[in-house]
């Protein structure tokens, strides 16, 4: 029988787990008198463990799909969460859906005013990198970049080195900026800090002191850890202003792990109105012609009338050969002429990519080939990924290897 998603199952007296909607395992354990949370992705390949040591008790409770610990001063709950919108969560004027595959929330309840306003939690990560998502600058906003308020000051968590195929964009989770809420429903953003890009040791949540001074207690602080493959911020790839359409071409570089052929590219797109927009996807090879001149490997594949609603847009490729060890740039662009005046079409991304990223205003009708563009100052992980088929190992190689093995094994 298939396990129900986002439902806690007790594995042992002090150990529980639930499965996310994309079938990843999340563990909640009462260990060393505290609660330890373990988030896994891609089976056991990547993981993130958080030891909630600020509430220590010999006893815990498991009730109504949550695990709880309590002391005279504090209470701690940990439980699964489903996809939710920013409008529902904290009244954002923009309503973005997050945690598409579900996730985990812990709630720390301060029954009275604490002595400190900061909680530093030990963490252990395996095969993950933690990218801080900065507050948007005036320039970002002027360029039309959009970001939910709980993504500013948050962390996007990616596989340390892998993406594409089963890894999709390489994104494991998103750790959203926590909110503190008092008994009268006054709310304040907390700050979040993780002390390392790779192999961090601590996660710190800081509540504004002024809020704690003025709050009516109890105060609840509840960071969300959301499973998702999509970036949390949006950049324009098509727009129209004063009747003139404009196109931007955006892409991220990635090193092909093995030789193969390209099946399709997916990009996470949306409109800010009801426009459907023609879009193209291209594969270029980084610096293949010269520095900053990227030869075209897969000719632009055009999808007409990409829908307005947030979605993965799939561009079917033509089995183009991709060579192991070569750096390719997967990129997309949208037709600004399809936008209504004043409106835009967006591609999702997270700040701080593991590899280089590129973007510029472009000609939609005739995308440059080779693409001549220098890399961005700040690298980003655009929510674009490729599905490819690895080339099988040749029979002659197998024969040669088999002969060598037999000799080495003194079989011949």
């Amino acid at each position: 029988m298939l396990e129900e998603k986002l439902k806690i199952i007790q594995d042992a007296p002090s150990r529980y787990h639930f499965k996310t909607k994309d079938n990843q395992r999340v563990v909640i354990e009462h260990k060393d008198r505290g609660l330890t949370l373990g988030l896994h992705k891609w089976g056991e390949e990547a993981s993130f463990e958080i030891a909630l040591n600020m509430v220590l008790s010999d006893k815990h409770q498991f009730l109504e799909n949550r695990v709880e610990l309590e002391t005279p001063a504090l209470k701690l709950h940990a439980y699964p969460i489903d996809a939710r919108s920013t409008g529902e969560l904290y009244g954002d004027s923009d309503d973005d859906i997050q945690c598409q595959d579900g996730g985990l929330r812990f709630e720390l309840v301060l029954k009275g005013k604490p002595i400190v306003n900061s909680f530093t939690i030990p963490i252990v990560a395996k095969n993950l990198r933690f990218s801080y998502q900065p507050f948007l600058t005036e320039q970002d906003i002027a360029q039309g970049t959009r970001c939910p308020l709980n993504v500013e000051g948050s962390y996007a968590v990616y596989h340390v080195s892998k993406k594409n195929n089963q890894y999709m964009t390489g994104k494991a989770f998103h750790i959203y900026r926590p909110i503190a809420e008092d008994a009268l429903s006054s709310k304040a953003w907390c700050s979040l800090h993780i002390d390392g890009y790779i192999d961090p040791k601590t996660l710190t949540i800081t509540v504004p002191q002024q809020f704690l001074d003025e709050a009516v207690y109890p105060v609840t602080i509840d960071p969300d850890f959301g499973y998702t493959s999509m970036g949390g911020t949006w950049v324009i790839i098509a727009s129209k202003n004063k009747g003139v359409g404009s196109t931007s071409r955006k892409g991220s570089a990635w090193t092909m792990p093995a030789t193969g052929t390209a099946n399709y590219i997916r990009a996470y797109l949306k409109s800010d109105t009801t426009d459907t927009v023609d879009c193209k996807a291209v594969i270029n090879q980084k610096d293949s012609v010269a520095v900053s001149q990227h030869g075209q490997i897969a000719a632009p594949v055009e999808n007409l009338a990409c829908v307005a609603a947030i979605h993965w847009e799939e561009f079917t490729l033509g089995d183009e050969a991709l060579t192991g060890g070569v750096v390719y740039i997967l990129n997309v662009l949208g037709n600004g002429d399809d936008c209504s005046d004043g409106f835009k079409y967006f591609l999702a991304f997270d700040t701080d990519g593991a590899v280089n990223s590129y973007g510029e205003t472009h000609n939609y009708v005739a995308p440059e080939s080779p693409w001549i563009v220098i890399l961005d100052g700040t690298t980003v992980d655009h929510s674009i990924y490729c599905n490819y088929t690895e080339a099988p190992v040749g029979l002659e190689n197998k024969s040669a290897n088999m002969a060598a093995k037999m000799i080495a094994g003194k079989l011949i």
Partner: protein
Amino acid sequence: MEVWRFIALRNIDPYTFQYAREVLTTSIDKDVAPSTLLVEQPSSPLVPVGKDTDLRSKVRLQFCKDNGIPIIRTASHHASSGFYDTNSIRCVLVTKSPLFPSWELFVMLFYKSIVASLKVLGIQAEHPPGSNNILVGQKKTSTSSGIVVGNTMMMSCTLSLDFDYDLADKAIISKKVMRGWVTTLKGELGRDVSFDEVCDAVKQGFQSTLRIELKDSDLNDEEMHIMKNLGEKHQSETWVKYGKWSPVKDYWRSE
């Protein structure tokens, strides 16, 4: 015959003027208020913009700042800008009545009611199908907008008693010079028209077209509470500048 609320808000602050529609749409959708016709007039000029308006390309920001003209961003998804002065009168119809089984019918009857109201005043106007303008000859006397929230429909349009064209051209960046294509009640009738006269004409026009009875009333307590919450949002810097807001206080964002 259905009995609806009629509310007249004269010389109200520009923020209340601009988001009273949102208040009514919210309250009626929540069933805490009945169907309503609102007529309102601001006490000072304002520049309304849509949720997606790029302020730098649609508004003369420094002029508005120097002259105390508030820029008020609405939740409506459009990217344009407008201008209202103290002679602007807005008519807002909000309902979830079964009298209107479709949005299309609601919109048609709304425009018909506006044309009927102008006729009471002595102005021969028309609404070209598919347009959101009311025309007198070649000139526009009113522009309109609407929204559906749940089962609740809202349409609004603005009539100008008179209009400060020069101030409008200085405050917003527009493709056309307003003087050539926007007309006013004073311009068409050759005399001053009062707020009360417009209210009477609008009441007659809507009552006869929609076959409803309008009873004078006020915003209720729940609506005043919604108004207060919306005020926090609409006057926040992040909402005006960027069209984003939430009730969560941010102590960390740099100034």
